[in-house]
Structure formats: C-alpha cells, structure tokens
C-alpha cells in the first residue's frame, strides 16, 4: 500500500475494485465505512454485489477481464472534463502525452460495449473520484489475477497520478494483501529476482554486498569452500530464478528435480490443480514444512512439522508496510519446531556457516544490516509499541506512513499508455458462463487453518456456486441443489446459490474448499510479467447433477399425470 490503513477514514472518495473488502479485510472496511459516515463518496467496481457495493454511492458491475477498459474510460472522462491535476502532472510525472493518446478512444460508450458498465455510470464515477480532494484506490486479487494483471495495476497508478492522488495522506493506490505476511515474504526476498528489500540479484554491487555478508567471499576477496555434501557456492547467482508457476511447470517436464516448500499449499492455491499435482508427483524429492498435512504435504517425501504463529517469536509485515512483533504464547505442539529453527538445523546439517542464530531477534539484526528499507528496525524499537512503516532506514527514522511524498522512487512518476486486451478465455457456445473466484468472510485462503476452526467452518461448511436467476433458469436448476461445473480443464460438483448478487452470465465460486476446488477449473494462462494465473476469468458450463429425491418426485408426478 502507498498509504496507511488508518488514513482511509479521512479520504473524500474511496474507489474499491476487485476487493471484497468487508469479507477479506474486515477491519479495513470498517475504516472505509467510517469515511462514508464522515461524508466520503464510495465507488465500487465489481461484478458481484458485496456488502461494500450496497453501501456505495455507485456500484459499477463490469464484465470480468475488462478492467483496463473501464479505467482508461474514467481517465478519458477526467481529461475531457478538465478534471486532471495539471500541476501534479507537470511537476511530478512524465509520459502524459502517451497516456492521453492511449485513452482517447475509450469513450464511455465504447467502454460500455466492452465492460457492460452504463456510460452515464462511468462518467459519474470518474467525476466522483476526480473531484474529491483526497481520493484513495483500493484493490486486491480481483485486479491482479488476470493475464493483464500488471496492466491493471499500472492503470490504477495512472488514474491516481492523473488526479494528483499520490504522495498525500488518504490518497494513493492501495493493494490489500490477502495473507497476513505476503508483504513480509516479498520484502524478505521471497522472490526470484530480488534479495531482501527489493535489491536486484542482477546488480553486481548488491551481489558483492551479499557475498561478503554471507561469507561467500572473504574480506580479501577470496572465495570460501563448503563441506562435502554439496558443491560449494563460490559466488551468488546473478540469474533471475523461477517463479512458482514456472517451478511447477518445470517439475512436470523434469528440469526441476526438487522443491522445498515452507508453509505453502500450492496444490490448493495453484490454478489448474490437477495439472499441478501431476507435475509435483514427477519430482525426485519433495520436502514440505507445515503445521498440517496439507494436500501438498500428502504427496511429499519428507514432511517437517512447523510451529504455529502462537508458538514462536518473530515479525509480520501488514499490508501497509507496518512491521510488528509476533510473540510466543505457548510451547510448540508435540515435537514441532519454529520454521527458522528448522532451517538453521538443516543448514548446519549441510555444513553451511552463517546459520547460528539463537533467536529471531538476531536474524532481524542481520536483516536490518543488509536491507536499507528495514535498516532502522530492531526488536528493542518494536517492543516499545512503536508503529514503524518501512522505509525506515535508520534507528532514528520515524517510519513512513505514506509513500512518494515529494518524489517517486524513480524520480518522476511515469504514465503508461495501456491497451485493452480481452481475457485469455471468453465464454462461448460450449462454455457459456464466465467463472470468477474469490474469498468469503469465514474462511481463509486454502482453508487449511480456517476449516479446522469449528466456529468458522460451521458458518459456511461447504462449497457453492453463485448463479444469477436468469442463468439458473437456462441451466434448468429448478430445484436441483447440486450441479456440476466444468471447464476445459476439470469439473467439480457443488451446491448452488441462486442470487442476483452476481451479474447475469457470470458465476462465482469461493476457492476455500478442497472437495470442490475452484482451481480445478481455472485457467493457468498467466500474466507475462507478473506470472500470476488468471484466476478471475475462465469459461465454464453448468449441468444439474442427478438428484435421487427430485427424480422420485418427478417420476411419481409423471405417473400420476
């Protein structure tokens, strides 16, 4: 997030898209509701009716996959109505002419054709957003999980810069991270192209810094050798590594031999899971470190029991870059161990040096020494209840509640002219409905944790598909409670919920349920840059499942008439 969670409260307009905020991020939605109570305008762009859309001033229901089109359309309106922030554009940005040319054809009428959003609604939304003093954009996976995910994100940034909604409180572009430490996993270099703090693996100076710090080169430039088990690493690799999607794919083709997976369940989270399972089964060796025997752990060669959040110390980084202390409350269950201890032990077993940490606090000291944006963090400072958002470069720095205050990290903010591209798969005669997937309030991600929490699981114990009444009639649901939903990749059986919360032609399935996993259907075509699979759009068809009770009724009805 460019800005902080508490700032939402003072926004004059909040534009929410691709985020079911009140279910996925409840305490952020609370702030947005407070803003509304103070007079802010709320605009929701989402194919489904959500709690947020019900309280919004405007709800635009777009066709899934048309985000670039409607955002370009809003910018078209803003430019033509003279609502752009000329001073901001002049002083802080470059590339405006490219943007202007790219959005010129996206008149509200043209956008209506692509997205199904009525032209007058689009104009009203554009004005609402652009006329506000401080307007904030909120988005989540609904924006990123498309083949055009990066384009969608750049489009949001274009819109914010065009109206000068950057670098001030209660403005900005605010992606809401789904899992509690996604932000931290990225910050810590859990990515194939960067070390901690987004320092590029391809930068020779950065590489040299880490080689020295990690004891791969000695002070006088000599290289260290390792012990017998492995070929010693004599220099850090400057080659960008594989993404998770590529790792799974290459496991299937045999180039990747081993995966070591900590606390992730790609067999539930990955798009097209039947395919992913086949790929992972092809590995020579699969190690999973987790707290439960997840679907992925079930096929592993070795499973190492990790400790839960309540059984260890450490830090998590919230979606607004807020680093906070996690404190151990109880001893690890059984013989389980904190994940950091497991890695320490394994590294030592392999004869590696540099893994002699006796506490997470010591690890944080190493992180701070090597990661400029985390340079000012220590447990001492965090213990005092300080709220410290990165960048926090040194021990005196108060942290950064909002980014891009006087300049962008690259200097001038760059506008990108973005072309609209249709989704990889659209509904057709064989698969006439568009499936979109998402989260619901009572469950979390692949359900590993929440479905084992009795109170949460009781609320929504089984999978379902939401379908509009018009489509329900076409499919002939007519009393059938269960249906089969199929795509070109797989099929699942589940319950139906007929509701006008969803747009006609679109169906919705929450992805938390292993026995009817939505990701058996989804498309693994992915964004060429971010490599995020297109979870939010794929074509499906729905057939009713034989229902013995209903058939008996129908039979007896027929025989009597």
């Amino acid at each position, binding site marked *: 997030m460019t800005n902080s969670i508490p700032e939402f409260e003072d926004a004059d307009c909040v534009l929410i898209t691709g985020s079911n905020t009140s279910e996925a991020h409840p305490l952020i939605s609370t702030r947005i509701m407070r803003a509304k109570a103070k007079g802010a305008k709320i605009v929701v762009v989402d194919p489904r009716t959500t709690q947020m859309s019900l309280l919004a001033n405007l709800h635009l229901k777009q066709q899934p996959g048309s985000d670039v089109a409607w955002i370009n359309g809003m910018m078209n309106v803003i430019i033509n109505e003279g609502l752009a922030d000329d001073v901001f554009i002049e002083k802080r940005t470059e590339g405006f002419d490219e943007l202007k040319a790219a959005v010129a054809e996206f008149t509200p009428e043209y956008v209506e054709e692509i997205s199904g959003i009525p032209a007058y609604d689009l104009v009203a939304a554009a004005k609402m957003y652009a006329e506000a003093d401080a307007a904030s954009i909120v988005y989540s996976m609904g924006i990123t999980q498309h083949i055009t995910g990066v384009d969608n994100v750049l489009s949001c940034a274009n819109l914010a810069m065009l109206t000068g909604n950057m670098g001030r409180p209660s403005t900005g572009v605010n992606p809401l991270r789904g899992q509690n430490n996604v932000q931290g996993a990225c910050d810590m270099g*859990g990515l194939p192209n960067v070390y901690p703090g987004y320092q590029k693996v391809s930068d020779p100076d950065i590489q040299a810094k880490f080689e020295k710090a990690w004891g791969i080169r000695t002070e006088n430039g000599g290289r260290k050798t390792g012990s017998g088990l492995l070929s010693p690493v004599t220099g850090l690799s400057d080659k960008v590594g594989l993404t998770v999607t590529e790792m799974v794919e290459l496991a299937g083709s045999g180039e990747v031999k081993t*995966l070591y997976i900590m606390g992730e369940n790609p067999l539930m989270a990955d798009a097209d899971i039947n395919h992913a399972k086949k790929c992972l089964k092809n590995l020579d060796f699969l190690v999973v470190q987790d707290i439960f*025997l997840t679907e992925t752990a079930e096929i592993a060669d070795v499973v190492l029991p990790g400790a839960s959040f309540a059984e260890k110390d450490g830090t998590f980084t919230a979606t607004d870059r807020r680093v906070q202390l996690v404190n151990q409350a109880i001893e690890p269950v059984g013989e389980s161990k904190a994940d950091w201890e497991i890695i320490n032990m394994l590294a030592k077993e392999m004869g590696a040096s540099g893994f002699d940490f006796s506490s997470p606090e010591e690890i944080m000291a190493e992180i701070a020494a090597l990661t400029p944006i985390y340079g000012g963090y220590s447990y001492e400072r965090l213990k005092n209840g300080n709220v410290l958002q990165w960048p926090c470069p040194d021990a005196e720095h108060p942290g950064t509640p909002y980014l891009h205050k006087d300049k962008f990290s690259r200097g001038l903010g760059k506008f990108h002219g973005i072309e609209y591209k249709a989704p990889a798969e659209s509904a057709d005669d064989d698969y006439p409905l568009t499936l979109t997937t998402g989260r619901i309030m009572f469950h979390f991600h692949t359900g590993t944790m929440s479905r084992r929490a009795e109170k949460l699981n009781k609320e929504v114990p089984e999978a379902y598909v939401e379908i509009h009444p018009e489509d329900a009639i076409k499919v002939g649901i007519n009393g059938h409670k269960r249906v089969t939903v199929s795509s070109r990749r797989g099929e699942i059986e589940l319950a139906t919920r007929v509701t006008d919360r969803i747009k006609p032609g679109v169906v919705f399935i929450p992805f938390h349920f292993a026995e009817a996993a939505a990701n058996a259907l989804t498309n693994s075509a992915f964004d060429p840059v971010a490599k995020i699979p297109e979870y939010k759009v794929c074509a499906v068809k729905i057939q009713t499942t034989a229902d013995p009770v209903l058939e008996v009724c129908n039979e007896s009805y027929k025989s009597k008439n």
Partner: protein
Amino acid sequence: MDYKNIQTICPYCGCGCALNLEVIDGEIVGVLPANDHPVSQGSLCIKGWNAHAFVGHEDRLKKPLIRKNGQLEEVSWNEALKLVAKNLGSIQKKHGADSIGVLTSAKCTNEENYLLQKFARAVIGTNNVDHCARL
C-alpha cells in the same frame, strides 16, 4: 494456575490486527482484542476472534514424517534432517543448483522468510525462490 496474556499479531489477513492470546497453564483459552493498537482499536473480525482455534487442533503435525514404502511414517528429527540434507546435496551436485526450487511463505515470519531465501541463495546456490502470494 498460571494465567498469561500475550499480545501478538493475527495470523489471518494483511490488516495486521494485534490481539491478545489468553493462556492458562500453557494452553490458549481465548482471544482478546488490543485496545491501543492503531488498526484494530479494540475490535477484531470473526477470524481474529478465532485466531487460536486451529493451534491446538488434533490434526497438527507433531513429528517429522518420511515416506517409506509409499506411506508417510513418523521418524526422529535427526533421521529426517539427515535425509533432506543428503538428497538436497546429491541433487544439487548431480543436476546443478537450479534444479532445486524453494517456496517461502506468506504465513511465516519475516525472519523465517529471510532465512529460507538465504539458504536457497547462499547454501544451494539458486535464485529459484518464490512464494504463493500471486496465487
């Protein structure tokens, strides 16, 4: 009876609400919100209120497991770590570091994520490091 109240961070979504785990004799019995926290401000959502519910679940893994004759069997830490070390080493030697991939976790701490990517890069020698956040 030993009663403790430990302030920590909710394991569910990225809002990062603080919460208090109520511990009696080494067992978590409940959750209380944290009044002075800038985001949670004394409230939690239903997931936060149930943050502890899965911690003591009977399905928790309690010992390392190794697949033997097709079945996962409980073994000692020593045996499990030796096997992982030996296999990672021999695969790295035989097929090169880039035949190994590592997934860090959006559910683990910063320190754990840091350590695992350090392990991948400095010990194995590969940048094949990612996590499931895109998913």
